[in-house]
């Protein structure tokens, strides 16, 4: 693969469960210091694509190339620890790394994500926003080159969401990590992302946010109003969709 800055590349990824194709023809490429965002409606295959890229799941066809020895920090979409499991934030952070981690190292990453006060609190007692910051801290503790964030602002109130996105920005800046992020928040995506991949079981459109927001498929997915508040730039499109989301190309003889 090309240069040193290349972190991960997914090419022609297709995932099918039996006859049910949930994702096809997905290409994603992440470079050092770049934020790539996956957007799309529920069931579009965003989390599936993330799982394939993380190696948690094998694609039916297609390949995923990772930089050899790539260190990945992952922030899962959901975390619910059984109330019967007594575990503090500090202990939870330490679980993420096989070697012994000093309290100091734990404090440093919590400081970075703004959750230093809850170091010794039980995991089950912290708020949604604090949980996201702890998960982010655990990802950072591994000194990652690539951060994979599956809906990082889930369960966080509006002001907290803005704070979290700012935090992700500053982490990218300070650490020069590559970021893959699944997100619903289009405004933030458009403002803070280098590259957008819009999924609806296949890649609808991909590119710089300003291009994507004018794409007819994007407009169809998210509505005219949303698109027009986001758009600044138009470009040509090469295919259209049936109602079920499948692609009408030149070889389509219906619709």
């Amino acid at each position: 693969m090309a240069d040193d800055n290349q972190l991960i590349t997914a090419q022609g990824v297709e995932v099918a469960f039996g006859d049910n194709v949930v994702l096809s023809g997905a290409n994603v490429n992440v470079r050092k210091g770049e934020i790539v965002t996956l957007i799309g409606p529920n069931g579009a295959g965003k989390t599936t694509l993330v799982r394939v890229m993380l190696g948690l799941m094998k694609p039916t066809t297609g390949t995923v190339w990772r930089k050899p020895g790539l260190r990945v920090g992952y922030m899962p979409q959901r975390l619910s620890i059984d109330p019967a499991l007594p575990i503090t934030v500090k202990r939870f952070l330490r679980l993420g790394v096989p070697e012994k981690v000093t309290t100091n190292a734990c404090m440093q990453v919590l400081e970075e994500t703004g959750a230093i006060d809850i170091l010794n609190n039980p995991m089950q007692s912290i708020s949604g926003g604090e949980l996201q910051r702890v998960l982010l801290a655990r990802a950072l503790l591994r000194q990652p080159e690539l951060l994979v964030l599956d809906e990082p602002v889930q369960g966080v109130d509006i002001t907290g969401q803005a704070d979290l996105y700012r935090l992700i920005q500053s982490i990218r800046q300070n650490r020069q990590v590559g970021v893959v992020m699944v997100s619903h928040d289009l405004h933030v995506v458009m403002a803070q992302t280098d590259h957008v991949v819009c999924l609806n079981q296949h890649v609808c459109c991909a590119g710089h946010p300003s291009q994507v927001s004018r794409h007819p498929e994007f407009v169809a997915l998210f509505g005219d109003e949303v698109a027009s508040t986001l758009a600044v730039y138009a470009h040509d499109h090469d295919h259209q969709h049936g109602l079920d989301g499948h692609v009408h190309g030149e070889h389509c003889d219906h619709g």
Partner: protein
Amino acid sequence: MDDFILRALLAGVAVAIVAGPLGAFVVWRRMAYFGGALSHTALLGVALGFLIGVEPAVGVTLVVVVAAVLLGGLQNIRGLSLDTLLGIVAHAALALGLIIASTLDSVRIDLMAYLFGDILSVGWGDVIWIWGATVLIVAVLMKLWHGLLNATVHSDLAAVEGTNVRQMDVMFMVVLALVVALSMQVVGILLVTALLIIPASGARAWSKTPETMAVLAAGIGVIAVGAGLWSSYQYDMPAGPSIVVCTTAVFVLSLLKLPRV
């Protein structure tokens, strides 16, 4: 002290030591019914053991390990919920075990002893194999602890961080099967789950880390074995059930300490 009480105490203490931490994982992973289903299959192991002429303990261990792996596979079946599948496997195995037991002409299996435990009749040979298994299980648990705990908290996150989650799940089930085979001798098939989940649940109130909970659970189990055997000896009560009642007493006490909603 009478010899048989000493043997019972030694066997019971060993089983309590492994049932504590294993029970903690059963509680954390919400697998209480899984443990129950496994213990029901143990009777099939006893019957098969007699049928092919091996020690019941060997038959039980083998059958329970097979059932554990089988149940692990069944978890992936869609269309029926896990608790239904567990109920089916548990009772089918129990029924099959009872049928096989009834067809054995040459031996009469003391069903009551297997269903409710017969700790007062363990021999020195049993004590040795129970302690051997205990040392082995504790060693395996300590080696796997970090990975097992990580996989319990969040399996995907653990996998990304390099834990072999599948291997952890299989190892956990195999060890759990071994513990079920051990516990059966102390409290019997019907009360095995109690020995796993009650000490662990009782330990929750006084624990701030997973490790303290595991150790405390073992401690509660050991105390309950002592107290249960003493009351059994003193008041002529059945030993296995007495032990379970003692763990329950500690659990009830711990309720005073647990926070309320």
